[in-house]
Structures are given as structure tokens and as C-alpha cells.
């Protein structure tokens, strides 16, 4: 199935992309999508290896990585600095 990933901040710099469409197996979770992105874009893992360093919106809503994806879902991927 096809989903859209929008990159923000550090992710945009690392991937050189603002937005991509990506094919992924049906029933995949966001965690599995992240693994795919780590393999496709060197440098992504530097941020994604620590969950607290980034956040994900699924169709605009803040979720954690266990959520399952559906056809045409839109993911926003962005780094977050904790503290304060």
C-alpha cells in the first residue's frame, strides 16, 4: 500500500526531501515504516534510535509507533527537543 511521509526539521535536512510517497506492506506499523526509512536514508537512524528525540503525527494526530498504517495515510516525522 502507498503512504505519504512528510519530513520536518532535522529529517528534512538528513533526507533532502520534504515529502515522499512510499510503498509498504499492508498492516505495517509506524515502527516498521521507521525501519524502512532508516534503511533508505542514511542518518535517519541517528535520530530514530531514541524515541524521545522525535515524534510522529498520523493524519495530523500525535500517536506512538505501534499504530497500524492504512492506504493513503499521511505521516509527519519531526525531531523534538525534550526539556523545559
Amino acid at each position: 500500500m502507498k503512504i505519504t511521509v512528510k519530513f520536518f526539521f532535522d529529517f528534512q535536512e538528513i533526507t533532502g526531501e520534504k515529502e515522499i510517497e512510499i510503498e509498504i506492506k499492508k498492516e505495517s506499523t509506524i515502527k516498521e515504516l521507521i525501519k524502512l526509512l532508516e534503511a533508505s536514508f542514511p542518518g535517519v537512524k541517528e535520530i530514530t534510535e531514541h524515541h524521545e528525540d522525535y515524534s510522529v503525527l498520523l493524519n495530523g494526530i500525535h500517536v506512538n509507533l505501534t499504530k497500524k498504517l492504512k492506504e493513503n495515510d499521511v505521516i509527519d516525522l519531526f525531531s523534538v527537543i525534550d526539556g523545559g
Partner: protein
Amino acid sequence: MKGYMGKLLRVDLTKREIIIQDLPENLAKQYIGGSGLGSRFLFDETTEKTEPFGEENVLMFLTGPLVGTTLPCSGRHAVVAKSALGIWGEGDVGGSWGVTLKRAGYDGIIIKGKSKKPVYLWVTEENIFIREASHIWGKDTYEVEGIIKSETHEKAVITCIGPAGEKMSKMAVIFNNGVHARAAGRGGLGAIMGSKNLKAIAVYGRKRVEVAFPDQVRSLTKESAAKIIERQKRLREFGTPGGVVGKHKIGDMPVKNWSLGRWDDDKIKKISGQVMAETILTGRYSCASCVISCGRVVKVNDGPFAGVDGGGPEYEACGSLGSMCLIDDLKAIAMGNELCNRYGLDVISAGAAVAFAMECYEKGLINKSDTEGIELEWGNAKAMVEMIHKIGKREGIGELLGEGVKIAAQKIGGNASDFAVEVKGLEPPMHDARALGSFGVAYPTYPRGACHRGCNHYIERNAFPEFGLDDPIDPREHKGKGIGVAIMQDYSGLFNSLKLCQFILNVVRPPQILEFLNYVTGWNLEFEELMKIGERAFNVKRMYNVRLGLSKKDDTLPKRMREKLTEGGAANYSPDTEIMLKEYYKYRGWSKQGIPLSPKLRKLGLSKEAEMIEKMDPSMLEEF
């Protein structure tokens, strides 16, 4: 007793009496230090009848065993008293005052009574002086630093109150390190200091903190410092405001007095740490033994807010003075922040009070005659700055707002209480329970009121396998949050007792934190015992409030934070505090009414508290 200086300084300002007392090792082993030790003292030395501003209230400044060692991010201290809100009060702060107090030979200072005239304390290795302070009464915290240094020692470190503390505003806090403005004591502990006519405490000393295993401490220092520097480099680069854009995107950062789920992306970016780094940032500040340097140093050279020069806004100020008031001018935020520092105000509460007043103004509950001509419209940066002056000076409507939004709403009337966002009288920090649901149980249960320092929001963002929290929990999931918050409150509380900075909490793992303590003190504590110490202190703080009559009825989330947002990353969710509280109370061994039960208290060695519970109305003690 390694890690400790072994001495507490007791000062009675009414009697002008100074006593140096030994710190008993058994007490240290049960509570460690900081706010943990403070919980024991405050419970024992005040009663339910103690008036916050009465002579009998006890104001404590307490360090911990790691303070003054080489261990990274360990240079903090706690301030503890019955708060101006009339409940348990504590503050946790960096800077270098705590380290310097230990180098003067003391683990803490405990102050009772009330001086007839304004005074300050001057504490050295050799002497303790109670000095006249009439000449600095009325001075702001930046001015006080310079004057007291010139009267004591150029390397003296000063903690003090500003005019807001002198005038006993419920949002007055206590500042150390001059223009770098490290603040302690949300809930008005600055007002408690002011009520005692105590303007400042200056400390200086050169003693060393001895550790039990110097070689191990050296290698732990090296190893953990390297890890912290690597993991927190972005926090160093952009400070806590570096989180502004990301936190706004998930709906965590409040907008327009907690009424909107998102703001304009370009406006948010303008008040971020990234833009600060490109514009007004002139340096980075580190507390004693810090290897992160999250503190901001800023200067504003031009425009209507020119003159700002010193400690810069943190994430909280960008929220309270910025997005909460719809102000996207970073220089105005820097000015509002500096004024809070100078007046000795809590920037979270002060900004929240201005945002609340803006909403009252919009709704016609107050008008231009109430504000003495200030057009208190959303986004009016000049008005925000003028309001901070009024709150700091306790002038006009600023006097009422300085009481906090709870009391202000009661006085203003109408439906103002519907959008007065507070828990137990304390305005929440800039994190929304609708974005990170664990705040839906953490805010209601923290003993000083809505607090993000007594727990933390890593439950949604970080796993803690050491505590059985194997995966971050979804922001909207309720199951597991009550237990997770209870565990993390106990663990965060340990940081507030050891006096470690919470910015290393997710970097230096729990087994290493235990090594920090054991290698410094020479104790041989097991991890289970360490967690029990955290749990013990938390229960004493809870019991402090229970003795005052607080229970489940007070463990609430503000109405507005229960209303669903319609936009942004936190849209269409409201945390179910009731579900999370049940799990939380049950896990803690508390009753359905949120009262710690006797078996739990006795297991923690709290027999005095257990006896108190055994005399309570049984209807309050129904078990799960």
C-alpha cells in the same frame, strides 16, 4: 558521612538564634536529601494549623549527597516550605548556590521565625551573620547580587527574592546566580521568604565534599559526562526553547490560554530556540558541574524591548509569555522573562496570569479601567510587558493577578473560573494533558499542584525497561499511565533528593544513578531500597496534604484541559483522569479517596503517618 558535610544550619529569625546541628545518618539514609529530606522536616516541624506566612512556617534550603562532587549535572538544591497556596511546597533549582553552601560546610539551612526588620544571611566556613537588609529591600534580584557581593565576598553566591517576594505574591519565587536567574519554589516560596523579612542568603566556602570511592566516582564522572554531552548536544545548541516547534506540532504547547490546539507555524517558529540562536543569543549558561549548558544568555540591543541583558527565556517562558498570549515577538518575551527574573516572579504563573487576564478582557469581564488604560488584547506585546510590571510591583490589577488565576477568577467572577487553568491553585507548566495524557494523572496528583518536575512526560516518549515500562505508551491510551506516573514520580523525586538534574534522567540509566549514590556515600544500597526512598518521600508529601484535609476531591484536572481541542496534533482527545487515578491509587496502596493506607505507610517505615490514618473517618479509607 561521605558525600555529606554532616551539618545543618538552623536559624530562628524571631529569636535571632543560630544553631548548628548534626545531620543524622539514619535520616539521610531514609530520605537522602533535597525535597525528600525536606518532606520529613516539614511534616514534623509544622502542623495543619501553620499559616504559610506565619512565623512558625519553616523555609528550608537543602542540598544532597552528590552536590559538590564531580558527577555531572549534580549542582542543584531544593527549597521546601508550606507554600503560599497553603499546601506542600517545594522547588528544585540549579545554579551554583547549593554547591557553595556545601563548600561553606552545610548540607542545608532551615529557617524559622520572622525578623523584625529586613535581613540577609551571610554564611561562610567560619561565621554566620544575620545582617541588616533595609538598604536592599525593594531592589530587584539582579541588583541584590551586586550589592551583597560588594558587602561580603566577590565569589559569594546569593539566593534572594525580588520585590514580588517582599510583597508576598503567591507567584514569587527565589532566584540565585544573579543575571543567570535560576528560579526555585513555584507556589510562592519567594513570598514565604518575604514573610520572614529575609531578603537573601549569601554563601561562600572552599571546603571539599569527600566521597567514599574517589577512583570510581572519577571514572563514573568521565563515562557519564561523555554520554550526556553526546545525547544532549541539541539541548546545548538550542536550549529548552529548541523544543518549541516540535511541542507545538504535537499539541503540547498551550496556545491562547489553553483554548487552541495550534497556532500559525511561522509565528511559532519566531519564538523558537532555533531563531533565538540566530538572533538574540549571546551565550550559554551552565549550572555547577553541568555538562549540558541548556541555559540561555541573551541581549536585546534595539527596538521597544532594548536593554534585555542576561538569562534568556526557557521553553516555559516562550509558552507562558508567547503562545499563551499569542505574542510572536521573541524580544518582547525576553523582556517579559527578564522582568520576571528581576521582580522574582515565577514566569510560568506570571505569563499564565497575563493570558488569563487577556481572555477576561476579551470576554468583557475586565475592561480598560480595570487595567488602568492597558489595552490587554491578544498578541499585544507591550501590554504583556506592562502587566508583568504590575504583577511584579503588585500594583492595580497586578495585585490580584499575583494571587494566581484561581483567586483572581473568584474575585473577577462571571465564568472566569471556567478558563482559570490551575490545579490546587498552581498554574500548570506549558505541557498539555490533551497531548500527553499522562499529565492527566500527573498534574492532579503532584503535591505542590500542577507540576512537570515531580514526574515527567517520558512515559509517552521514552521506554523505561528498568521499571517494566517496555514501550512508550500511546498519548491517548489510559491503561498503564497511572502506574507509569507513580513510578516516574518516585524516580523523579529521587533526582530531587539526590539533587541531580532531570535532563540526565533518560541518559544515565537507573543502575548507574545507584552507583552515583553508593560510590559517593559508601553505602551499599540495592536498587529496590533506592526506589523505596523515592516512594517514602512521595508519601510523606502526600500525607502533608492529607493532614490539611486534601484527598481525591482535590486531584482534578482544570475544566479547560478536559475540553477537547478541535485542531492540531492533540485534537479530539481528553484524558480520562478518573480511569487513570483508579489505577494510580491502587498501585500506590492508597484508598479510593486517595488516602495512603496504613499497611503501605508502615511498610515505608512511616508509623507516625500510619497512626494518623488509623484515626481517620473509615469512609475515606475504603480499599480497592
